[in-house]
């Protein structure tokens, strides 16, 4: 029932065969996820098939509660599937959760360094890389603060720095810029795009901002309301770098927004 279209990865252009396990590919086949049992059970995802090419940037759009976060945690291997399969994921993946979930017993720098520490990076390099990443997310000077001393948007940025510190080939992001002002968000769009290109990451990016999705994605996947199914996949063929307030972005965004509206009102009605 779902429409699968593979987006060509930027830069590399190589297309990987179905059977081969490629670095950074994510292939979902008929994924079903139900929470709970019996009459109170909620079907969050119902038959989601999706193919994400290595090195591509995929944005996920969908109504609140349609199963986007669920999908990411299935890809990350944090939950068990009810049915279907998820292939070709090189784990652990890097992931940024919807809530920052920083560790209160560590400083801001400590939180970022932890991701490096687990991977056995030495102390000096850890410190340096954490400082760089905090620079990237515009938090220079906050390295020694505790999470509770930060504002909501600042915490989200620390979580972003931590996810980037993971250096995994697959990066999952759940509304990473939801709590940021337009300007900071623009800056981080540029930074994220730069890092994605440099590291040839495969990115799965959940957002509610349709323009943001079009600004960043190679493909934009629209999920239906609960239970989540793939409604449509839009290839974004525009050249990079794109500007979020450019006309082509606005136009495609408008088109997708209309589709989203139709879906949500179909449900609400």
């Amino acid at each position, binding site marked *: 029932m779902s429409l699968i279209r593979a987006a060509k990865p930027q830069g590399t252009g190589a297309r990987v065969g179905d059977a081969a396990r490629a670095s950074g590919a994510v292939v979902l086949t*008929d994924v*079903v996820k139900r929470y709970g049992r019996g009459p109170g059970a909620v079907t969050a995802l119902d*038959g989601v098939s999706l193919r994400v090419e290595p090195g591509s940037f995929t944005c996920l759009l969908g109504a609140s509660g349609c199963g986007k976060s669920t999908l990411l945690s299935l890809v990350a*291997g*944090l939950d*068990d*599937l*009810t*049915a*279907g*399969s*998820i*292939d070709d*994921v*090189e*784990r*652990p993946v890097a992931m940024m959760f919807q809530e920052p979930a920083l560790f209160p017993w560590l400083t801001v720098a400590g939180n970022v360094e932890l991701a490096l520490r687990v991977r056995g990076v030495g102390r000096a390099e850890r410190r340096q890389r954490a400082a760089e990443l905090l620079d990237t997310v515009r938090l220079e000077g906050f390295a020694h603060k505790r999470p509770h001393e930060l504002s909501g948007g600042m915490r989200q940025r620390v979580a972003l720095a931590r996810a980037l510190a993971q250096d995994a080939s697959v990066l999952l992001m759940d509304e990473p810029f939801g709590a940021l002002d337009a300007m900071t968000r623009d800056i981080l769009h540029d930074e994220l795009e730069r890092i994605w290109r440099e590291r040839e990451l495969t990115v799965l990016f959940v957002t509610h901002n349709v323009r943001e999705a079009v600004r960043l994605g190679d493909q934009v996947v629209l999920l239906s309301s609960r239970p989540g199914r793939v409604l449509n996949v839009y290839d974004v063929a525009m050249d990079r770098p794109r500007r979020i307030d450019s006309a082509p972005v606005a136009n495609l965004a408008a088109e997708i927004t209309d589709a989203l509206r139709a879906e949500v009102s179909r449900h609400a009605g």
Partner: protein
Amino acid sequence: MPVETVEVERDPSRKWVSGLDELEKTPVTETRWGRLGAKLWAGTWPKVLALVFVVGAWQLLFLSGWKASWVLPAPLTVWQDLSEYAATADYWQAILITLQRALTGFALSVVIGTLLGIAVARFKPLRAAIGSLITGLQTMPSIMWFPLAILLFQISESTIMFVVVLGAVPSIASGIISGIDYVPPAWKRVGAVLGMKGLNLYRHVVLPATLPSFVSGLKQGWAFAWRSLMAGELLVIVAGQGSIGALMQGAREFNDAARVLTWIITVLAIGIVVDAFFRAADSRIRSSWGLHQDS
């Protein structure tokens, strides 16, 4: 569309997930009865195994002749003593009396401990004045309270209650204080914004949030109460048919190893039953808070 998550078994890269607490995952079992059965089985076999292991080791030790049989009686001897004794009214009456005292004393302690805990957590001067004393009181052996207890209550049931309450209150208060101290400030802010003050804030926000720590304080409090009771029951043998504390000590006085073990087993069994209540409470809290639930 397969109904099993074949993936989980197939993909070796998933193995690392075992780092997550295994408890978080429930096995995919087919039917409701199958699930219930599996759950029961999962909760039972380790206990049975542990029991078999302990009794087996004990029997072996006995057979090895390491210690004389009056020092370390055979499991069977103890079993016989236990089953014969359990057929007498004395045994059950002692359990009844002691449980009654324990429950009364504990109930009293819960009330006092909770109020004390809240008061200490809430009023800074009170905390400064007696906060530190709470640990101090806990470290005081029950017998040191005997003179004071006799002074205040002569020799009566109240004397025992006094010792039990003094034993349990600090733990319960401690649990509640530590719980209150760790209530996330965000929740208190929500409470304040909802217009709660004083009692209301405590009733609707602070105390529910404190529940996990409170339950663990109760558990410790129960242990202290019980221990104090065992000591206290030696002090007062009131128009008192035998109590566990007195009979247990009696068995020791007579160096009756089998009977001592009978009582040890009884006390452990009571402890396990009581623990089941605390576990049930804990389990309910955790499942409703969305923390994974174990069997």
